[in-house]
């Protein structure tokens, strides 16, 4: 088995000027090419975890970090954020706050310019990257004139241009409408499937994560309290409820029925399997 691309080894962290730990003894491993969903209440440490992977914590924000974070074989505290950028790309919840350039092409170019990539290479990389996120033909448009979904895809393109192996998205669709949401998640799924990109998503919408993620990590008060496949995690309905976390509605329905001994077999978390299971159940009863 190859070395995991992200390794947290007993990581604890407190933001500068605070006593309280934002992460408490976090240990986890993420394999290259995995699609990982991070769940938890606001303030559980999800964003902090993401910022540790791209090295903004502690290199840029300071604070006290113990334990080690190893990303693609690099100990993050030893590399500046801009070096980590070649390995990890991170986008945030408000796409507009990530825009700084006059045109879409220049927004994508920014990282390349800073890395000193020659013009000839940029001329090739930028259209390629825009094509990847479905923004071909928008090169000369102003980023601020795009829709939310387009802006977020542009923010993703801007980090993808640096050719990272890992893409972290921190609530990437919380400011988007349903179309924008779909655009972003479809694109991330495509990157994961076709390019083997490791994707880490911080997200509240469990139905969406049940559909896309290979693995779910649940944080609570800075600790990893669950770590497993969506099928493992989302079926632990009562446990998640005590944590004030939602589960996919399909799982809720099956659990409610199971409490009355009316549901045998696995608890579904996605729409299609749930439909099949319910129809089988009804068919059996009617037969």
């Amino acid at each position, binding site marked *: 088995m190859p070395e995991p691309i992200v390794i947290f080894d007993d990581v604890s962290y407190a933001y500068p000027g605070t006593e309280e730990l934002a992460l408490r003894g976090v240990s986890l491993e993420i394999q290259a090419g995995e699609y990982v969903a991070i769940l938890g209440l606001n303030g559980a440490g999800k964003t902090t975890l993401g910022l540790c992977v791209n090295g903004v914590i502690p290199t840029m924000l300071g604070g006290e970090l113990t334990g080690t974070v190893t990303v693609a074989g690099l100990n993050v505290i030893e590399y500046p954020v801009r070096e980590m950028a070649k390995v990890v790309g991170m986008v945030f919840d408000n796409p507009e706050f990530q825009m700084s350039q006059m045109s879409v092409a220049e927004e994508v170019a*920014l990282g390349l310019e800073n890395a000193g990539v020659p013009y000839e290479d940029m001329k090739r990389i930028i259209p390629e990257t825009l094509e990847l996120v479905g923004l071909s033909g928008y090169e000369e448009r102003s980023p601020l*004139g795009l829709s939310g979904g387009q802006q977020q895809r542009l923010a993703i393109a801007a980090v993808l241009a640096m050719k990272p192996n890992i893409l972290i998205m921190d609530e990437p669709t919380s400011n988007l409408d349903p179309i924008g949401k779909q655009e972003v998640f479809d694109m991330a799924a495509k990157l994961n499937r076709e390019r083997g990109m490791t994707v880490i998503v911080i997200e509240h919408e469990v139905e969406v994560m049940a559909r896309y993620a290979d693995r779910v990590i649940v944080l609570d008060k800075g600790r990893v309290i669950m770590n497993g496949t969506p099928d493992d995690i989302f079926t632990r309905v009562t446990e998640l409820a005590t944590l004030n976390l939602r589960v996919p509605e399909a799982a809720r329905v099956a659990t409610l029925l199971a409490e009355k001994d009316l549901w045998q077999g696995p608890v579904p978390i996605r729409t299609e399997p749930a439909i099949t299971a319910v129809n089988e159940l009804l068919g059996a009863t009617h037969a």
Partner: protein
Amino acid sequence: MSMQMALPIAMIPGNSLIHRITPLPKMIWVVGYIVLAFSTTNIVILYSMALFAFLIAVISGVTRPLLKACVILVPIASSLLALQIIAPAVEKPWTSVGHIGALALYGNGVYYGFVLLGRIVASLIMALVVVMTTHPSDLFTTFAKLKIPYTFNFMLAMTLQLIPVFQREVGIIMSAQKSRGMKGRGFSAVLPSFVPVFVGAIERVQQLSISLESRGFGSAGIKTSYRQVKSRPSDWVVAIVGVVAIATLATMSIMRGTWNLSTVILFPHAFVFWLFVVAASVFAAVILVTVFYMFKR
């Protein structure tokens, strides 16, 4: 939803002859215009410059936005001329051309008033035409070539970019306050909005700095530029024609001691009188409209 509010001065996309000229020759023209405007008091030259700049605007297809932006000249022109007629900025003695009530009107300052106005009008139109026909990024790339520091350049570009964003934010915040029944007008109404605007700005900057740092913004190494501004022979022609024409006119003016035509061009008394009436009325109207809108809000 895209809610881009157009700035009064922003690039108007197009593919005219003027649009295709690279920024450097255009910048030479703007600087040349300003130099010439302040080295001459010849109103024929000044207004010919303004007319020439306006013709360029027509060729570039930016006439309408230019005229819109030039609305700012209305209060400037009216107040400037009215003031020069009641209190000329030239040495006494002044010759009275008439009275309105107790107010004495003089003709001596009118020429000087037109000179001041001509300088503003000519330089402003030329500068606006250049801004409206040049992609801001090309402009900044040129600045960078002229060794203007990267960070300064970046901040300038960012600021330009953020003006419409902040306009929008302030609009939303004011709406939110009003929805809570906030009373008060003018400054006291705007004041509470500053807190959210500042907090919003700080959050934006924090987020942006993380986002930029993650894209290698702070790296010390050699930076390359995606935007390539390549000068063609035609750009050189434009630049050289500009330098020669402006240098010639400026030299001629300076040789003739600013080429003042105030003794040649004389304004009839009736013209001065009516000029004052019109300028003063326009200025008064501007003030009234402004006050009205302030209170209406």
